[in-house]
């Protein structure tokens, strides 16, 4: 894109007149990573110290080798080793036995609930993160924003494109083409602004940008350029990324190491690329559901209920495993097969939105997560 820099703040300026808008000087950043497919929390963050762990998991049970002990009960899977330095620096927390209000086992409905922030699927048409923006500039690292970020507030999408950019001379003519077609007109305006911003913000890191263009499927490479965009003073403050590969119905011990590695290296890459801005950042990685406690007939796990969330960031009061652990005794399981949820994921999202981004209880309980006053924001996640 050969355009002069048009501050990404342009987007913010348009939205800033909406009620609840925050000053553009707000430098706090939030990243939500949607882990699509249903991450097995018991495999990512194994409760090695639970007396029923080994028998309940059978062939999927991990030994201590290569894991990082978090406390007497929990550990990081060996593939999450790139997160160990963050744990030592108190920039990593785990929330366990957590689930959305959804209690069935469809990926697609579960993702709908995770992203809309409703209590059942298809009840809300926009994403909770969009309703929480309050004028903050937002970007999805994808071709089109996922439901989590879709809604009335402006949110753009961007990813490194291997194609040459558009000639500046034709931007006006293109814009004229879409007058009266809001879907295309808005996408065009946001796309052009974002291309210009990204070209500028990545001008000093051509290697990083080139790497991300070449390796379209590498989460760490994508995370690195994303961190660079977010580090810019006028860069996006709220970002959504997505990572799949978690639907491990078979051969889980082998198959799950790959997305775990991608996730851990990606988070580490974000931390490095954000630089000083990492201290103002919180990342939440969440999945639509956990998986069965016992392995299925094929060395994998089927769709379950509660799982784990991973939180990282310099703004975190980290170094904690937050859980009201229900245990893995057969009698303690949800419907005799899944990890029992003891915490509503909205409590975690609310806790971060309240203490990190400063959203009020009224907005959280009524707008961001409608009719959710009964779900209290989880305190203590964010550094005071």
């Amino acid at each position, binding site marked *: 894109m050969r355009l002069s820099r048009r501050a990404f703040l342009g987007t913010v300026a348009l939205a800033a007149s909406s009620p609840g808008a925050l000053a553009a000087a707000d430098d706090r950043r939030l990243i939500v990573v949607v882990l*699509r*497919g249903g991450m097995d929390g018991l495999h990512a963050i194994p409760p090695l110290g639970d007396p029923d762990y080994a028998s309940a998991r059978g062939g999927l049970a991990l030994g201590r080798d290569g894991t990082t002990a978090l406390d007497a009960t929990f550990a990081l899977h060996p593939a999450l080793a790139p997160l160990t330095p963050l744990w030592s620096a108190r920039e990593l927390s785990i929330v366990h036995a957590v689930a959305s209000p959804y209690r*069935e*086992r*469809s*990926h*697609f*409905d579960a993702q709908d609930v995770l992203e809309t922030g409703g209590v059942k*699927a298809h009840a809300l048409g926009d994403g909770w993160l969009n309703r929480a923006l309050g004028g903050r500039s937002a970007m*999805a690292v*994808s*071709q*089109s*924003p996922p439901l989590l970020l*879709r809604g009335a507030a402006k949110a*753009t*999408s*961007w*990813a490194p*494109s*291997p*194609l*040459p*950019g*558009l*000639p500046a001379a*034709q931007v006006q*003519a*293109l814009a*004229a*083409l*879409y*007058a*009266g*077609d809001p*879907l*295309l007109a808005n*996408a*065009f305006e*946001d*796309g*052009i602004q*974002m*291309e210009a911003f990204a070209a500028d913000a990545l001008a000093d890191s051509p290697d990083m940008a080139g790497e991300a263009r070449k390796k*379209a499927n590498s989460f760490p490479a994508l995370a690195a350029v994303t961190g660079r965009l977010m580090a810019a003073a006028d860069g996006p403050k709220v970002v959504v990324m997505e990572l*799949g590969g978690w*639907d491990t*119905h*078979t051969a889980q011990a082998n198959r799950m190491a790959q997305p775990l590695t991608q996730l851990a290296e990606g988070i580490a890459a974000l931390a490095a690329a954000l630089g000083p801005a990492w201290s103002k950042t919180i990342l939440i990685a969440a999945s639509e559901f956990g998986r069965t406690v016992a392995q*299925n*007939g*094929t060395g*994998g796990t*089927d*769709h379950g209920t509660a799982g784990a969330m991973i939180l990282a960031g310099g703004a975190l009061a980290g170094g904690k495993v937050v859980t009201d652990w229900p245990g893995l005794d057969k009698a303690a399981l949800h*419907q005799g097969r899944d990890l029992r949820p003891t915490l509503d994921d909205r409590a975690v999202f609310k806790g971060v939105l309240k203490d990190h981004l400063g959203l009020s209880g009224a907005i959280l309980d009524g707008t961001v997560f409608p009719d959710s006053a009964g779900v209290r924001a989880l305190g203590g996640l964010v550094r005071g």
Partner: protein
Amino acid sequence: MSRENALFALSRFGMGASPGDASSIASDPRGWVLDQLSSAVLPPQLAGLPDGAQSLRRLGQLKQERKDKTDANKGELRQLYLTEAAARTRAGAVSPTPVIERLVRFWSNHFTVSTLRLTVVPIAGAFEREVVRPHVLGRFHDMLRAAIRHPAMLAYLDNTQSIGPHSMAGEKRAKGLNENLARELLELHTLGVDGGYAQADVEAMAAMLTGWTFDPRDGGFRYAPRLHEPGAKTLLGSRFEGGEMEAERALLMLARSPATARFIATKLARHFAADDPPPALVDALSRTFTDTDGDLLAVTKILVTRAETWAQPLAKIRSPDDLVVATMKAMGGDLGADQRLIQSLTLMGQMPWRAPSPAGWPDRGEAWVGPEALMRRLEWAKAVADRMARQAPADLAERIIAAGPATRQAMDSAKGRDALFLLLSSREFQRR
């Protein structure tokens, strides 16, 4: 008006307009659509490609030589995939029955198999030829049965590995069920997620499907009694007595459920009318589906003749596949060798037969034209226009889109390849 109707029909029901199409069908656009429903013949571009069983045997050999993984990335399996995907894309552009090509894409997406699973790489094209094409104007139940029995589906959704816990193999090896295929069969292929089934139904369906696998030596479907869960099962209140035929009977019951009729009707209406389809159209399709025992020809005839699907202007966003095929038709030529053609689809987010999940590709506009997605489309259109400049873009526009004033004006003030680029970028060309 007849030119507008012709252009509408070409994009809405077909795969886009070639320069001569609108004038040749202008006298009867509706007849042009209906005439194509008389038979679905295999496009010549797809003749001679290996059948699924043949490719599975080859995959089996490569597996024994431990070459299957590298081969799927760059060897002969990858080459076969590229050949298949490019042939299918070209068939979409040159077929004399583009309505059939659109229907094939719709049903192929409904019964998604994805090359994210290695076994699917060499047989995704065969799946479409063997499962979808023979039944695209036939009975839904026949297509459903062919889809669930095909090795591509059995491998993609793990059924080849699902073992009845009390079967002979299960007792011996302490192996068990895998629910993946059963759940998606109920949720995505038949009843829909609100179709009234519970977890116990998923487990019963999974138990009934145990033993449905394929023989890697001959590459065909095989029922393996050693893997089958014995005993009676209950699905949606109906009792099934065990054995090879119980899953067959379950499929028939699912195909005849009113929930399935409603679910299929909604998806068809969404694809052919609007992202949020008119309820009256859904009702009409659902009724016909039920009344005719899932006769897809009868359902399709309703679909292409109701006023709701002929309501102008074009409301649907073209998927990347639609866009690439429509561009090939408009430009009257190829867009490059196999690899380049598939790369175009990949960088716009729709690598053929590689949907991110068994739900298939999305069918709503906002999922396809986010800011970055639109930038990619335009960057691609620019590259095409630069490579394939035409002498008279205004004349071409007249033949392939019903241009509104904004598009006319923008094109009038540009020349040559710039005007062509604007034509390919226009809202009229981006929608169908």
